[in-house]
């Protein structure tokens, strides 16, 4: 079985702070990490490797420094790592991103593609399903467990829903998007770390994926950012440092004023 896991390097948004004076983001010193849902997906792939001896490839599209998460994936135990990087791929929205990654996947042999459900810097949850569409493959999103049935070449997938879950049976090859909360990703192995830099990270440019230029990068992006701005929080109300009894009075009066009681 061949599995390709699509991963993304993201800023650790939980570490982002706001400058209280200017209200702007402080991006300096924010560590870059492997996107959590992608890491969950990678763990599912490695479990299939443990069980069925699957060959696991990771691919990321990004800046050259995204190599770091590929090395991390190698240290976790993947067999092959690909960095898709090219200026022509820059400025891509989700559709152009998915076109480029699908282009790379088209040149590969696989039974299963795993992506994270969504990336913490964008939270769109779009790239996985869009890759599936470009490749004309079935998709299952919000995957929280999967089993491979060797005899039927199908996957039995547990998909999270608002009310509970759904069990789906899907023909290989297919695309699934994984939930970080469904699994504990393994730590990098010490020996994996020691040898991570002896292994090759394949660097692919846009010429390698044979996707028309009007489908990738900025040109291939139907959406554009009109403006970005720090979140405007509404002005703060009054804050009182009072005894519990006085606090209750203040709250009750406020509730009466706003007709809550």
């Amino acid at each position, binding site marked *: 079985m061949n599995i390709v896991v699509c991963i993304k390097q993201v800023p650790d948004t939980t570490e982002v702070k706001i400058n209280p004076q200017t209200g702007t983001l402080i991006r300096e010193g924010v560590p870059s990490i492997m996107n959590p849902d992608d890491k969950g997906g990678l763990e599912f792939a490695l479990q299939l490797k443990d069980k069925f001896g699957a060959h696991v490839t990771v691919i990321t599209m990004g800046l050259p420094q995204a190599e770091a998460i590929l090395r991390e994936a190698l*240290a976790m135990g993947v067999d092959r790592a690909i960095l898709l990087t090219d200026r022509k791929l820059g400025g891509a929205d989700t559709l152009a991103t998915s076109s480029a990654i699908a282009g790379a996947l088209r040149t590969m042999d696989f039974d299963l593609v795993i992506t994270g459900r969504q990336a913490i810097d964008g939270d769109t949850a779009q790239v996985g399903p869009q890759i599936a569409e470009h490749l004309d493959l079935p998709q299952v999103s919000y995957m929280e467990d999967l089993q491979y049935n060797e005899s039927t070449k199908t996957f039995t997938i547990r998909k999270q829903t608002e009310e509970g879950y759904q069990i789906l049976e899907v023909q290989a090859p297919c695309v699934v998007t994984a939930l970080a909360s469904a699994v504990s990703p*393994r730590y*990098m192995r*010490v*020996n*994996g*770390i020691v*040898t*991570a*830099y002896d292994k090759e990270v394949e660097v692919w440019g846009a010429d390698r994926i044979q996707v028309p230029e009007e489908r990738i990068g900025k040109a291939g992006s139907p959406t554009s950012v009109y403006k970005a701005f720090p979140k405007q929080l509404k002005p703060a109300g009054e804050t009182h440092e009072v005894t519990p009894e006085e606090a209750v009075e203040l709250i009750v009066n406020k509730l009466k004023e706003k007709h809550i009681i």
Partner: protein
Amino acid sequence: MDFSFTKQDELFLQMIREFAEKEVKPLAAEVDEEERFPMETVKKMAKIGLMGIPVPTQYGGAGGTNIMYGMAVEELSRVCATTGVILSAHTSLCCAPILESGTEEQKQKYLPKLASGEWIGAFGLTEPNAGTDAAGQQTVAVLDGDHWVLNGSKIFITNGSYADVFIVIAMTDKSLGTKGISAFIVEKGFPGFSIGKKEKKMGIRGSATTELIFEDCIVPKENLLGQIGKGFGLAMKTLDGGRIGIAAQALGIAQGAMDETVKYTKERKQFGRSISQFQNTQFQMADLETKVQAARLLVRRAHYNKDHGIPYSAEAAMAKLFAAETAMEVTTKAVQFHGGYGYTREYPVERMMRDAKITEIYEGTSEVQRMVIAGKLFK
């Protein structure tokens, strides 16, 4: 001169920090309170390859460096000094002497199981009457046909009741003094070997510190480690390496106390502002930070020397001396900065202060380290 990490070191640090934070820290208070050996953590460490970091891959190890091993002990000790010393004793005091002095058969037999964490290692040198004066060994080993017969006891043995393999130092010829001392590999199940009482300690309370008792203990002849009469040198060399591990542990404890104190002094407000804004806090903390950084450089250099085959005996002694005293100073002041809260078990600095003290004592007291350093200075 290059003080930068290799890319592998950076990756390793990322991993071990996450591991310490997620798997070790949440258990630290409980392990201390209940004096419980964190076996579940050891199993997790084994899975990742932490139990055999500097052991070559041909013996089932991770093939890493001693720098990495030192980083592991530091980062584990930063959140839980008990976990740090379990790894340190296992690696420095059991894996290392087998790797450095063992026969090929011994390495093949013991290292894969130790490096994979299937077996835990320990080291027995100290006796009731042979502490700093390690040459006063009273445990004796007598050759009887195809085996050695050991009699005597060891005390204060880290990992004692949980270890599967012990490096044991014993007298094979009393008349020769230190030249009559030899080393043995003893397995937990050997006849005549038993574990004695468990110590109740001030700190590192989760590590199992016990007596080892040898009553006509039968040790196969081939389990002699190194040559007959070379045991004292082997023990001293083992302790040279072990000291860097303990230095890393002390460094980790100091760093952990720094982390807690920085956080606390920023949050805690007195007289209308954070106590971190007072110059007294700032100046004291600046001094402590400088010492912690200096200790780290000493620890790293000692491990660097070990990795590169450069003598490190004095460097190890300096690293341990300085890191241990820094750990004691930092944790004592950390408790002071925390005020009344620091004296309670609600905050981890209380535990850290208790944990720090042992680093000035075991694997050579600070006085022994000064002897080693002075010995080199005035040779």
